[in-house]
């Protein structure tokens, strides 16, 4: 028994030592804390280069996915320990800016234009800065495409074709900031009605809606599905790693900057500023061309030199036709997320069943035309494409407020609850899909 007691005492002492060592390892020193959603391949390169340039400064990269990063900064605001927020989606920065959690900063580095494509590189209010451009498109697995004999898609429309049924993967806008940008870009480029019809068409061909944005390139790399809707660097970096994949931009895409901003009450504001300057300097921008990173720099001069192999967005080599309207996107941000989830994510099985019936009916009609059946089929297509609300309603501030994150003041008045509205939409959507399937099957039977 005595031995057991001695053992316990030893263990306790050991624990105490461990506790102490944990403490002493974190003495005060000159450091820089960056909350970022970027992968290790990107952050480690910049950390190393920055630490080499500023000896004595230790850079701490806190990796959290964008949504968790936003929550983290919000929740820790009262006693802030982070210096910089570094992520892709401008919307996330808009959320933090709206909460008054960012610090204005004037960039000293010269040689960066005001716009990339139609998009301002920096926040017009001076809170966050763009450091690299990203466009959206699709990547595909070449082995998969060959095995299943699929043609390479060129435009968004192609993905709605019957041949791609069950071969496409994407994430949902509510789960991935970059997917939200893609969805909103198409809604702005094609218009509300046509845009949603396109997403439903693609939705019907989906193999799956992944839980996070990296799930899409991961699925394409594995060969779980053949084609994925992704942000460009996912495609470029997968290819650079050696996966049998390729990437292309469709013509309706927007180039959107990935950003960095100083967090309000940053504990190390000088280091934070130095990091931003380094990131935007020619040396820092060149680091973006690392084969594992592959993002489009915002310094046009690089495209004549080291970035020659990448499409030059400043010369229109990425055909970004859409003028992305950030204000519009922000006004209906949560509403679009909710609509997408109700119509596609949560009713994917129903949507796929209806789409399959429509594809089959269309194939039958192509062999044996029948005007009456064709009318039924058009009706079925219209039912699938139908959206519960029109564009005007989506921009109605009062209606969108139902989906707003918080009441800012106790006096803010909102009528209606999100769950209530979603249930109404869900009823309509489900009934439509069921009816569409029925009509399409009827049409197919008539063409037999």
């Amino acid at each position, binding site marked *: 028994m005595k031995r057991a007691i001695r053992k316990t005492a030893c263990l306790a002492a050991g624990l105490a030592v461990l*506790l102490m060592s*944990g*403490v002493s390892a*974190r003495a005060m020193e000159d450091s820089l*804390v960056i909350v970022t959603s970027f*992968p*290790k*391949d990107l952050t480690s390169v910049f950390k190393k280069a920055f630490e080499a340039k500023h000896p004595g400064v230790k850079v*701490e990269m*806190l*990796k*959290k996915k*964008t*949504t*968790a990063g*936003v*929550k*983290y900064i919000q*929740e*820790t605001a009262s*006693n802030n*320990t982070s210096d910089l927020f570094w992520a892709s989606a401008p919307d*996330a920065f808009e959320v933090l800016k709206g909460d008054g959690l960012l610090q204005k900063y004037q960039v000293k580095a010269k040689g960066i234009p005001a716009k990339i494509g139609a998009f301002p590189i920096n926040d017009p209010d001076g809170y966050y800065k763009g450091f690299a451009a990203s466009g959206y498109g699709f990547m595909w*697995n070449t*082995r998969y495409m060959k095995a299943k004999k699929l043609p390479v898609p060129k435009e968004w429309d192609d993905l709605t074709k019957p041949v791609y049924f069950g071969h496409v993967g994407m994430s949902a806008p509510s*789960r991935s900031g970059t997917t*939200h940008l893609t969805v909103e870009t198409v809604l702005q480029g094609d218009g509300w009605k046509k845009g949603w019809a396109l997403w439903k068409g693609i939705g019907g061909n989906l*193999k799956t*809606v992944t*839980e996070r944005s*990296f799930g899409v*390139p*991961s699925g394409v*790399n*594995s*060969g*779980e*599905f053949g084609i994925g809707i992704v942000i460009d660097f996912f495609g470029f970096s997968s290819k*650079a*790693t*050696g*996966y*049998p994949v390729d990437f292309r931009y469709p013509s309706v895409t927007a180039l959107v900057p990935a950003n960095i901003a100083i967090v309000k009450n940053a504990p190390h504001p000088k280091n934070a500023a130095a990091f931003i300057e380094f990131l935007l300097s020619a040396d820092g921008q060149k680091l973006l061309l690392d084969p*594992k990173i592959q993002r489009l720099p915002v310094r046009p001069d690089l495209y004549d030199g080291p970035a020659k192999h990448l499409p030059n967005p400043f010369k229109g080599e990425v055909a970004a036709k859409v003028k992305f309207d950030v204000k519009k996107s922000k006004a209906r941000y949560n509403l679009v*997320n909710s609509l997408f*989830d109700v119509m596609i994510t*949560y009713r994917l099985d129903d949507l796929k069943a209806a789409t399959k019936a429509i594809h089959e009916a269309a194939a039958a009609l192509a062999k044996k035309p029948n005007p009456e059946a064709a009318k039924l089929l058009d009706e079925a297509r219209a039912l699938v494409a139908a959206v519960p609300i029109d564009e005007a309603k989506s921009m109605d501030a009062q209606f969108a407020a139902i*989906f707003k994150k918080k*009441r800012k003041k*106790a006096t803010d*008045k*909102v*009528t209606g*609850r*999100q*769950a*209530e509205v*979603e*249930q109404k939409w869900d*009823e309509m959507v489900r009934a439509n899909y069921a009816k569409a399937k029925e009509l399409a099957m009827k049409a197919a039977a008539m063409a037999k």
Partner: protein
Amino acid sequence: MAAQSRGQWGAAGAGLAVLILLLAFLVIPVAKVVYVAFVDVNTGGFTLLNFVDFFRTSLFRESFVNSLYVAGMSVVFASIISMPLAYFTTRFNFAGAALIQTLGVIPLIMPPFVGAVAMQMLFGANGSVNLLLDEWFGFTIPFMEGLNGVILVESIHYFPFILINLSASLNNIDRAMEESAQNLGAHGFRLFRRIVFPLAMPGFAAGAALVFLKVFDDLGTPLLLNVNNMLAPQAYLRISSIGITDPMGYVISVILVAFSLLSLWTSYLATRGRDYASVQKGGGGLMRRDLRPWEKVGAWALILFILALVLSPHFGLLLLSFGTIWSFSVLPDGFTLAHYREVFSTALPYITNTLLYAGLAALFDVIVATAIAYVVWRTDLPGRKVLDYLGTAAVAVPGVVLGIGYLRTFHDLNVPIVGKPLASWWVIIVIALMIRRLPYALRACTAALQQVSVSLEEAAQNLGAGRFDTVRRIVVPLMAGGIAAGFVTSFATAAVELSATIMLVSAESDAPLSYGIYVYMQTAAGRGPGAALGVLAVIIVGIATWMSHRFVERTRATAEADRKLAAAAGA
């Protein structure tokens, strides 16, 4: 009598300490987050309207039914997998019983993300198995699709809960019971059905309840299979969406917690009013006998088949960690050691952090769980059941909710000597892991205590031992098997937990393995190193499990020796 009431005070003190701990680190932080469920979004006042909305929404009703169905079926399949493993290894002299018991725990250690990818590479629609099937026979099997896919993966993943608890229980059965039954003519299956299984019921019920709860609340698997129409993913997806605080996510969390308590209460009712304790201790465990040769072949075949099935994800993980590029093919294109080289140069802090965090968390878990079990089952303190319910409710709290709750509650609380907020001190990760894994330890310790007869304690007290001495020298040693089972489950699962940790890691030097895996798995080039880290995690936990088995076996052997010695002295 004086000793009795003094002991009562001691137990009351322990109970109070545990209650304060649970209030501070579970109830208050969670309440700070889920109160949103009771707030009217329009007026800001108290309301139950959100719950009405829940039941009015067809999607949520559907999700609720799906979750129930999946959890129920998973318990059935998990029982089918674990019963032969538990029975053969405890009933027969089996070479490598410890090995099987250890390997049986490995499925619990499914590292986040890489585990999912490994499963897809093997069993996915275009995984190795289906590619081969398609090539040879021209058809494929959708293993990983829909609710049935979830049931398959969940059963493979969580059956060790039943295995561990059932084995501990079987080892605690009084050998005399079995002998008497045999003397009275019961043999074979009848013996198992009428005597052995009923006596092992507390362990089975504890394991089955855990599997049910865990599957009901599990997030990882539905997300990995992209099944959205279940409750836990619905809650998670609504809570973690950018910038939204939609009350429905929190409503679902409340419902998950409530339902977990209900199922716990049901399992409590099922074992109530029966006495599972046996007086005889020390020589416990089923009588072990040797297998006849043909029996041995059959048993090994069955066991190897089950192990091959449940360990296949880890085999996939191993391939992933050594493979170069693996895409739409049966095996990786080539093999390399580069991923391990990369990991070994960076991963050491992750490994030490994981051992420290998971070890401390599991240690505190079994201490707290033993205290709770004792207070609940051995005292008549008013309201003692609350501890049990609170301790178990933690299983249903989504990790994200706990993480956000900690940030909200402890961020303004500076720890004196360290000079930083409690929420960004590494100890908070240990506390989060401890709270999240407490239910496992609690079920195991409760089951163990239920099998210890009160009369042994009374005997000790009659001989003059105080309450504290009785607990220390009689109860805890007799519970050792259950406590070790609790430690192993808590440790193994804490070592790969991510959802709460990811909210709480505030410095990379504080990060555990699961966070390291997460970081790697965000990039195309990180898949191999991520898998290598995952393999390391599995190996580390495997070794820890094996060592605790050794520990249990050793204490049992010592107890046996003591008994023999005492008998000899008596003679």
